[in-house]
């Protein structure tokens, strides 16, 4: 079955600011869906709350616009109910690395066959510009007028430290061609894929702009000395942030899937089980 970009459209109108990185990520997701060629109704996009939370309304797949910070467990529930779907979550840096960080750590540990795209703009946009978990230390924002005090979260390093996740990448919203291929690779990867996307917020983040990134990003796959199957190398590159910022796949491995150890879903998805003829009387024995 072939699908076109037009098929992915919905009638809902994006409410993002002009030039927002979210438009590019949306396009990246759509292009990846087209490239993958799976029927759109076989995909389900889970979002949280924030600017990114609106994204699934603009893609013609099933979706769940859930709560701030809860994309990971909602996605896990959808996936365990029907692991034949292509399940993708999107969320912002506040959603994923702030309020939802606890869930993210445990979801990474499980390595289920799902994907999570983080729109990382290093700021809270929808609430009008407070500092986020990935904001560089010392940045002045609405909630840090004297400069933010914490060391920022390093998503790639954190993911590597989980020891469970099998696909870790960073994309850049300013390079959609590169981004959609990353997203497609993540969707096609057997295991949990995290893609942290550098996403300029044109309204509230005047530091991490398109130009800021364009001057700095380089592609890991173009560096012959890098090997994405080598965790030590990935760890080293995860610390690189300054003059040069790496994008691409940091780490990819073949790790056991959580769902491979669930006998109930080896033949059928849970949703395909017939529940009309269940007989529990076999369980009575231990109570008599």
């Amino acid at each position, binding site marked *: 079955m072939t699908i076109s970009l037009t098929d992915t459209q919905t009638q809902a109108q994006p409410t993002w600011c002009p030039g927002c990185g979210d438009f590019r990520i949306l396009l990246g997701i759509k292009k990846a869906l087209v490239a993958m060629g799976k029927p759109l*109704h076989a995909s389900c996009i889970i979002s949280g709350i924030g600017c990114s939370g609106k994204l699934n309304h603009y893609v013609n797949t099933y979706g*769940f616009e859930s709560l701030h910070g*809860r994309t990971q467990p909602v996605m896990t*529930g959808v996936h365990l109910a029907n692991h034949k779907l292509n399940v993708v979550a999107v969320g912002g840096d506040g959603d994923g690395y702030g309020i939802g960080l606890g869930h993210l750590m445990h979801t990474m540990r499980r390595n289920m066959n799902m994907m999570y795209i983080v729109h990382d703009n290093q700021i809270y946009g929808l609430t009008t510009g407070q500092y986020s978990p990935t904001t560089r230390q010392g940045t002045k924002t609405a909630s840090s007028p004297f400069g933010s005090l914490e060391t920022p979260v390093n998503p790639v390093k954190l993911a590597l430290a989980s020891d469970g996740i099998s696909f870790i990448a960073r994309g850049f919203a300013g390079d959609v061609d590169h981004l959609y291929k990353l997203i497609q690779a993540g969707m096609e990867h057997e295991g949990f894929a995290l893609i942290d996307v550098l996403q300029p917020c044109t309204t509230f983040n005047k530091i991490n702009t398109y130009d800021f990134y364009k001057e700095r990003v380089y592609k890991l796959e173009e560096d012959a000395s890098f090997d994405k199957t080598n965790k030590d190398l990935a760890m080293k590159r995860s610390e690189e942030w300054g003059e040069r910022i790496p994008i691409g796949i940091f780490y990819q491995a073949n790790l056991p899937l959580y769902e491979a150890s669930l006998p109930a879903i080896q033949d059928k998805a849970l949703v395909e089980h017939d529940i009309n003829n269940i007989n529990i009387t076999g*369980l009575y024995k231990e109570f008599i």
Partner: protein
Amino acid sequence: MITNKLQWKIGGEAGFGIMTTGVIFSKICTRGGLRTFAYPEYPSLIRGGHNTYQVTIDAQQATSQIHNVHLLVALNKASVTAHAYELMNGAAVIYDPADFAEEAPNLVGKEIVWVPVAMNDILKAKGAERIARNTIAIGASFGLLNYPFEYIEQVLKDWFGVKKPKLVEDNLVLAKAGYDATYQKYANYQFQLEPIKENARHMVLSGNRAIALGALQAGMKFYAAYPMTPSSDILGYMAKVERDMNIVVKHTEDEIAAMNMIIGAGMAGVRAMTGTSGGGFALMTEALGMAGMAEVPIVTVMGQRPGPSTGMPTWTAQGDLRMTLHASQGEYPMIVLAPGDIEECFYYTYKAFNLAEQYQLPVIILVDKYVQESWQSVVPFDTSKLKINRGKVVAQAELDKILANKEKFLRYKLEPDGISARSLPGMAGGRYIATSYEHDEYSTTTELEHEVTAQYDKRFKKLDTFLRNDSEAPKLYGEPNAAVTIVGWGSTKLTVLETLRLAKEQNISVNYLHFVQIQPLPVQAVQQAFANAKKTICIEGNKTGQLEGWLKQQADVKCTKSLHKYGGRPFYPEEILEQVKKLL
């Protein structure tokens, strides 16, 4: 001689298998056709502290612990001192003289049949471990009660046989040693148990296990939870039967994850449940409202224990009714059911799954430690009349038509009954966004007042439809025109039914109005029931009269009197009857 009407109690240190011993004791009685109700008390620790397990035995029906103890097994001295006030005249105490001397505990003025059994010596002689004292105690108890040894043998064989045959042999020897130490040696003890062969065989089951069985029978395929007393056992049991029943069980990182996971699964078309207590439920409430808004069917077991905050983890209370009714921000429809005994735990959990999908909303099973962790003998559940109802799920053929006409599927269509058909991810043409945000019929975000109001009303219409088609009036137990009507909800039923039997013996005219369906409240039925009642007394395990206030607010009915208890203990039939008498 009094036959088949007594209460047995065992007390000792935590960590020495008292709970298991209690279940085994119940089963041995039940094997002989007797009816049992077992109530454990334990502190929140693993070793040390004082544990008790008490079993009331009756020829026809047992639904509550009672005050009087007729046979006490005291595995330490503290068990006698702590429970001296419960021992009635003529009660027996089985104890080991090596632990303490019979004169030591203060039981002035009571005639006690002291039954020394050298349990520690028997252990030594047989080279058994300390935990096996319980088996000797069981043997000694049934020997004293003149009950045939064959039932002990049957149950111990089944209990230990699964794990290790060697354990069966060892335990049978110990049980027999205990049995022989007391059998026909105490002519002055006036209580005995006698098998009733014509009685149908019962199961011995806790509320938690009954809830689990009800969910499994209803086709629950996904259970996600974080351990919290008193609901942890549901998680443990589900995990134990995960493979046999072909389900997926997830012990999550926290309760927020558990609730959000079952909502994801519910949206994707799988019957899913979580179980928790007040603290965990507090964490779940934001997502609960999302299930209300996105109209996702889910079932939640909310097991109350005393609060506020950590409160007393291993004790019972009914203090979370209002919290449950008002959980989450905003207003949305949900159904709250409070099953009152082990059978109701099974049947209402089953029903909850149908209701959740028929009405596309959260259904809460509101229980408490008392019903969840008490073990009652019940008739094996009859599943022949149970029927799965999955509500309005759009057929693929219907979606194909919509696709062919280039129309859009309206997930949140404004239907007269408030219930729109839902599609499941994976169905061609059924695309929509389940959303926590206010939305239009198609599921697109909206903030237009007329659309918002229409969706709000649509969601609440589901409750009107429920009230018309599936609502249950509060049930009246006992004679219809009694002088006093006891009003209660949930597990209070257990004790009140025993109260009614006690009242009958004393010729007191009282009946019981039992509430399971608390939200939505069947207002007319409530008003009718109150119009029929003479004097009413509302009994609740909380301080502020949460049901009483709810009835007044919703149905404008008032109770004559109320009885509240909030010290962690369940009601006792004797204390309820005492209050009823004051109304006569």
